[in-house]
């Protein structure tokens, strides 16, 4: 049993993984920014 073409599978998998996690991380960052701004604004009040 050989694992021919394993590199192709791995790269496809890693691309999917990276894209999805990049997406989740960017949402998380944007959410964090908003919440920080919210806290700043509400503490000023």
């Amino acid at each position, binding site marked *: *049993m*050989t*694992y*021919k*073409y*394993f590199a*192709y*599978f791995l*790269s*496809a*998998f890693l*691309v*999917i993984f990276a*894209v*999805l996690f990049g*997406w*989740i991380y960017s*949402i998380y960052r*944007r*959410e*964090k920014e*908003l*919440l920080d*701004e*919210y806290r700043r*604004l509400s503490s000023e009040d």
Partner: protein
Amino acid sequence: MMESFYSKAGNRIMAIAISVLWLVVLYLVLAVTRIDPDQQMAQKIFYYHVPSAWTAGIAFLAVAVSGGFYLFTQNEKWDHLGLASAELGTLFCALVLITGPIWAKPIWGEPWSWEPRLTTVLIMFLIYIGYFLLRQFGEIGERTRRVSAVIGIAAFVNVPIIYVSVKFWSAEAQLHPQPGMSQQPADVYWTFILSLITFTLLFVHLLRNRLHLLKLQSQMSRMRDDI
């Protein structure tokens, strides 16, 4: 009143459940499913490629449906659903367009061929790029939302025409595998179904995450208004 998405226990549980499912699928794909004698590991890209396409399909359907609801109700939440679905649909579309050529390189010998499904996905991808540019360059407001709803609907009703036309356009290039899933052996079948479920759940989860952010964004802009 403004909280992060993962402060809710339900969302955390969902994230963990999807991660576990993801690992299970990966295990099944790597260690359990049979190895195709010709394509070997490259064939296994299929377990990720097809669910991505399926997810993109649901997403674009959601864009069109929420566009219709938005036009009739003018309720902002339908616009949010449309925008979030369009973003995720384009994201999964991109995954389809990336994994397709990775698979095709060793199997067809060339990464891109003008194969009907690939072409359809590419055209949809281009239409949605236009959709985002419209949202970017149109003024932020009711009019842009209305127009994007219209584009979302028009894009979706166009899908069958696009598909049929590219199918007969390059009839000689129809190399794309057409697996009848029900005739597949159990290991392949169930792994595929599980992957499909994982991707669908992932989509719903990401959609809710994005919607939560959109809600925060509009709350925030109202707050900036008041100050």
